[in-house]
């Protein structure tokens, strides 16, 4: 079994300040973890993924996430928010091999960026 909890439904930051979007997971298998971004009226785009290599993962547009097994977390961060970062962000978990064929999505976190 696997599950994902995105701890905040909305996060509001000012442009130029750090971003933290929180994600906790549970998985019976060794997990693969992903963050996807969805801009308004668009599809989902991969930001970054963890697949049992380095625990600090760098993604596109300056985002990064750290896999912490002891805390079962995969929080997404960015040092300085841009207006263009305003979007919906989804944390996703799948088994790295075997187990369920079905990715499990978090409910999403809406990032609001103020000028």
């Amino acid at each position, binding site marked *: 079994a696997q599950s994902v909890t995105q701890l905040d439904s909305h996060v509001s930051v000012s442009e130029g300040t750090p971003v933290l979007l929180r994600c906790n997971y549970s998985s019976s298998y060794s997990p*693969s973890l*992903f963050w*996807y971004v969805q801009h308004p*009226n*668009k*599809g*989902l*785009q*991969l930001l970054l*993924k963890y*697949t049992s290599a380095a625990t600090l993962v760098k993604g596109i547009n300056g985002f990064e996430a750290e896999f912490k097994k002891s805390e079962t977390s995969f929080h997404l961060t960015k040092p300085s928010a841009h207006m263009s970062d305003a979007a919906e962000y*989804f944390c*996703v978990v*799948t*088994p*790295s*091999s*075997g*187990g*369920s*064929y*079905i*990715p499990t*999505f*978090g*409910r*999403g976190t809406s990032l609001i960026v103020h000028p």
Partner: protein
Amino acid sequence: NAGVTQTPKFRILKIGQSMTLQCTQDMNHNYMYWYRQDPGMGLKLIYYSVGAGITDKGEVPNGYNVSRSTTEDFPLRLELAAPSQTSVYFCASTRSSGNTIYFGEGSWLTVV
């Protein structure tokens, strides 16, 4: 690379009509999925397939049907459309568990 292609992008249906959302991928992926996303909500799995000829129900399959006659194509059929099926539909595919999931651009469906 085309990736995952969905058609149509927008459609308005009348109650009781039927239609098919088309999805095709050119990455030779075994796993394909159909999700719906309601306003302000996450993604709910409708149906999925782990290979040609194999399909299974997801979380919200009622009112929908799928088929997977080829690796590339995974059409979603809406029978007797209802207002509750007004949503955005996403098709997705992946090579295998643990690999990147690729999404189509979405299909916006309104049932009136």
